[in-house]
C-alpha cells in the first residue's frame, strides 16, 4: 500500500532532479556510445565510420565491445540504465531483441536513398531493413582448404567437403548445427531454396547427420580462430570458418589457403538502437550516415564483408592496405554468391534448442574421441 503511494512520488522527484541535470550538460547529447565486436573489425569501423562521423557531425564516438548475446542488454533495459546509443548485432539477435522490446523501432525512412536516387527499400537486399534494425554488412561461414593439399584438383563444390575419396584428409567443422546441416543437404543436391523445408523433417535431419557422420576424422572447433590455426598447422586440409578470418590469414599472414565459396552461409550484421538509449537522435544520425552507399563501400576496403546495398556492392574497390581487389573476397560478389545460402534466422529461432540437442546427441556420443 505504502509502496503504491510512494512510487509515483519518487518518480516525480526523479524527474525534477533529472531535468536540470540534462539541461545543465548540453554536450552530453552530442556524444555517441557504440557497442561493437572489438578487434580488427572495430578497427575497420573506426577508420571507415566512426572517425569520419565525428569529423562530419562534430559528435565524438566512444566504443564499447562485446561478444554478442542479449544478457547485458536485457539487464540494462530492465534497470533503465542503458549506456549505449548504437548496437552492432547479428540479425538473429536483433530480431529476438526487437521481439522482446529491447530495441527502439526505427523510422522507415531512416536509411538514405542510393546516390542515384533509388529508394532505400529497393536498394537494400531483401530482409536487410527490419522494424528495429538495418543490416549493414553480410559475412559468411565458408569452407577453406589448403592449396597444397590436393595436387591436380581443387574443390569447387560444397559436396567436395564430404568427398574424402577425391579430397582426402581431416576436416575441421564448427560444433554447431548451423552451416553443417545446410552443407550436408546441399551435398545431396537439395536446391538451396528448399533446405530449411527439408531440414524441418525427420528424414531431412537424418540424411544430414548421416552425411556428417560419413566424414572420417573431424576436428570440431568452437573459437573462431581455431580453424585458421588447424589449417595453418596442417592438422586439417579443409575447415569451415568465417570469411573475414580466412581473408586476414591469406592476406596478412600469407597462409596457403583458398576459400570455397560454394555453399557459403550468409548472415547479416545490423545496427540497432537500444530502448532508452541516452542519445537516440544522434544514434539515428549515425545509422543513417553509416548505412549510406559511400560508407559501405569504404568499410569494404578494410574488411571483406559485403555491403547490404546493391548500389554499394557495385562500387567495392581495393583493400586499403594491400591493394587487393576486394570484390573477389566479399561474400556478396556475384561470382562468390552463386552458391550462397542465406541463413534462415526465423527457422533457427524456432528450432534452435531441439536441433542443437539432436545434433549433440547424434554426433557426439561416438565422436568425442576426435574432438579437438
Amino acid at each position, binding site marked *: 500500500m505504502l509502496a503504491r503511494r510512494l512510487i509515483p512520488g519518487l518518480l516525480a522527484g526523479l524527474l525534477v532532479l533529472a531535468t536540470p541535470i540534462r539541461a545543465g550538460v548540453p554536450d552530453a547529447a552530442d556524444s555517441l556510445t557504440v557497442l561493437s565486436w572489438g578487434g580488427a573489425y572495430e578497427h575497420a569501423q573506426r577508420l571507415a565510420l566512426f572517425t569520419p562521423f565525428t569529423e562530419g557531425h562534430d559528435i565524438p564516438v566512444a566504443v564499447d565491445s562485446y561478444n554478442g548475446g542479449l544478457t547485458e542488454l536485457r539487464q540494462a533495459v530492465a534497470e533503465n540504465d542503458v549506456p549505449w546509443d548504437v548496437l552492432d548485432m547479428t540479425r538473429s539477435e536483433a530480431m529476438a531483441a526487437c521481439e522482446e522490446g529491447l530495441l527502439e523501432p526505427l523510422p522507415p525512412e531512416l536509411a538514405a536513398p542510393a546516390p542515384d536516387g533509388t529508394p532505400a527499400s529497393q536498394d537494400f537486399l531483401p530482409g536487410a531493413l527490419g522494424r528495429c534494425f538495418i543490416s549493414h554488412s553480410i559475412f559468411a561461414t565458408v569452407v577453406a582448404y589448403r592449396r597444397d593439399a590436393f595436387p591436380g584438383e581443387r574443390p569447387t563444390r560444397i559436396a567436395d567437403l564430404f568427398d574424402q575419396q577425391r579430397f582426402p584428409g581431416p576436416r575441421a567443422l564448427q560444433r554447431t548445427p548451423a552451416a553443417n546441416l545446410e552443407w550436408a543437404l546441399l551435398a*545431396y*543436391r*537439395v*536446391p538451396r*531454396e*528448399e533446405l530449411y*523445408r*527439408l531440414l524441418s*523433417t*525427420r*528424414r*531431412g535431419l537424418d*540424411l544430414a547427420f548421416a552425411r556428417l557422420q560419413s566424414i572420417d576424422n573431424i576436428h570440431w572447433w568452437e573459437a573462431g580462430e581455431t580453424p585458421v590455426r588447424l589449417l595453418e598447422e596442417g592438422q586439417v586440409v579443409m575447415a569451415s570458418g568465417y570469411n573475414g578470418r580466412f581473408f586476414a590469414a591469406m592476406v596478412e599472414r600469407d597462409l596457403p589457403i583458398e576459400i570455397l565459396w560454394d555453399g557459403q552461409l550468409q548472415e547479416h550484421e545490423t545496427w540497432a538502437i537500444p530502448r532508452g538509449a541516452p542519445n537516440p537522435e544522434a544514434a539515428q544520425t549515425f545509422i543513417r550516415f553509416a548505412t549510406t552507399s559511400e560508407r559501405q563501400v569504404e568499410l569494404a576496403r578494410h574488411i571483406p564483408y559485403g555491403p547490404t546495398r546493391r548500389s554499394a556492392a557495385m562500387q567495392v574497390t581495393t583493400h586499403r592496405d594491400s591493394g587487393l581487389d576486394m570484390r573477389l573476397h566479399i561474400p556478396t560478389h556475384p561470382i562468390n554468391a552463386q552458391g550462397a545460402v542465406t541463413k534462415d534466422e526465423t527457422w533457427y529461432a524456432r528450432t534452435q534448442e531441439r536441433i542443437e*540437442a539432436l545434433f549433440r546427441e547424434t554426433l557426439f556420443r561416438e565422436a568425442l574421441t576426435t574432438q579437438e
Partner: protein
Amino acid sequence: MAADTSLVILATLLVPTLGGLLVGQLHRGLPGGRPHTPADAIAAVQTRRGRLPAQAGALSALSGLVSLGAGASVGQYGPLVHLGATLGSLITRLLRLGRSEDNITIACGVAAAIAAAFNAPLAGIVFAHEVVLRHYALRAFAPVASAAIVGYVLATQLLAQGTLFHITEPGVPQPWEFALFLALGGLGALVAGGYMHAILAMGQLAKRLPLPTSLHPALAGALLGLTALWVPDILGMGQETLRFATLPGAYSGGELLMVLLLKLAATALCLGLGFAGGVFSPALVIGTLFGALAGTLVAELRGGQETFIFYAVCGMVAVTAPVLGAPLTTLLIVFELTGSYALTTAALASVTLANPLAAQLFGRSLFDIQLARRGLDLSAGRSRAVLQEARLTELISHDAVTLAPATPLKAAISRLSQAGHGEAYLVDDRGRYQGCVTLAGLETLREGSEATTLADCPETPRPVLDPHASLWEAMQQLQKVTGEAIAVVDDERRFLGVAYESSIARAFLHHSDALRREEHGAG
C-alpha cells in the same frame, strides 16, 4: 524428449481420426453424401448442363481443407480445381449468361486455380482445354488465358509464393536412356492403373462396411495414423516425400518400394473411405517414388547417379498423366516448374507411351472411369455425352391417335383419316400400351381378311421408349423403326405419349448445332 515422443504419437493417431470424423459430418450436408471433385466439373461441361451448385462447391472445398489439414493422404489440387470451377459457374449465373458461357467460365476458374497453384499459367490453360473443355475454340481461349494470367500474377505477387519444385542443374542423359524413359512410361501406365483401381475398389469395399458412411473417414484416419507411426512419409500431400525421392541416395531401393506401396494403399484408403481431396498430388508422389526406384536400379547396374532426377521426373509424369488424362498439362507443369528443357523432353518420352497404353487398358482418366461408373460415358466424345444427358421427356407429344383394342376396323380407319395421322396406338381400358397399327396396314386388312376389330390385327413389332430415356437411346431405337413415332411407355407399360421421329431428329440437330457453335464459333 520423452514427453515430446508421446505427444507426437498421440497427434499422429488423433489428428487424422478426428479430422475424418469432421469430414464425415460435413459430407452429410452434400447431395450424394460425397465431396464434389473435378469429375463433376468435367461432367457439367461435357454434357452442357453447366451450373455447379455453390453450396456443394463450398462444402467440398471446406471438407478438402479439413482433410488436408488432418494429414489425409489426398491432394490439394482437386478441391482447388473444383472450387475454381464452382466460382466460374457462379459468375455465369450472376451475369445471367448462357450455357456456352457457363462452360467457358468453368474452364476459366479451373485454369486460374492451376495457374495459381503451380505458378504455371500455360499448364492452367492447357489443363482447362485438355481435361475440362476437351475441345479447342478460339472463343474459349482468350477468357481462359486471361484467367490463368490473373491467377499466376496474384499467386506470385500477392501471395509471394515461390516455385514448388527446384532442380539443381540436371545432367544430360545418354541417347540410349530415352529408350528407358519410354519403357518407364509403359510401366508407369501400369502403376497408374493399379492406383486408379485401388481407389475405385476401396470405394466399392466401403459400401459393404458395417458402419455408417459418415464414420468411414474416421476409420480411414485411424488406420492411416496407425501406419504413419511406422512410416510417416505417407501422411498428407507428400511434398517432402516427393522432394526426398528426387534426391539420389535419400531412400534405399527397399524403402522406395515400401513407401510407394504404402502411399498407394493409404491414398486408396483415404479417398475410397470418403476423405475429400485430389488424386493428383498423391499420384505425383507415387510416380516419383516409382521413377526413383527405376533410377536406383539403373544406377546399380551402370554406376553413377548423374541422371537420377530424370528417372524420378519420368516416373512422375508416367503415373500422373494417365490418372489425369492430361499428357500435355503434365509436361507443361514439368517445364514450367523446372525450366529444364532436357527434363521436359525426357518426360515427353514417358507420356508418349504412358497415356495411350493406360487409355487402352483402363480408360482415359480416373475422372472418366468414375463418371462412366455413374452412367456418363465420355469415351465416345462430347457429342454423345450431350445426347446421353439430353432427356426425352420434353419431346413427348400427346398429339397421337389412341384406340382401344376393341375398336372396329372401319371406325379405326375413319378416326385415323380424320386426324391426319398414319399411325394409331392401341391402349386398353387400363391405359396399357398394346401395340401399334398403321393406316396402310389397316387398309390391307380391310380388303383381304376376316378381322373386324383391331385386336385381331397382326402386330407390327415396334420398340418402345422409357420416358427417362436419353436422346441418345431414342436415336438408337430410331434406326430400327420406319414410321412416324415411337410410343413412350413407363415401367408398367402405361402409355404416356409418343416421340415423333421428326422431333427426335430436330432435337439431335439442335444439340449438334449448339455444340458446333460452341466449339467452332469464332466469337
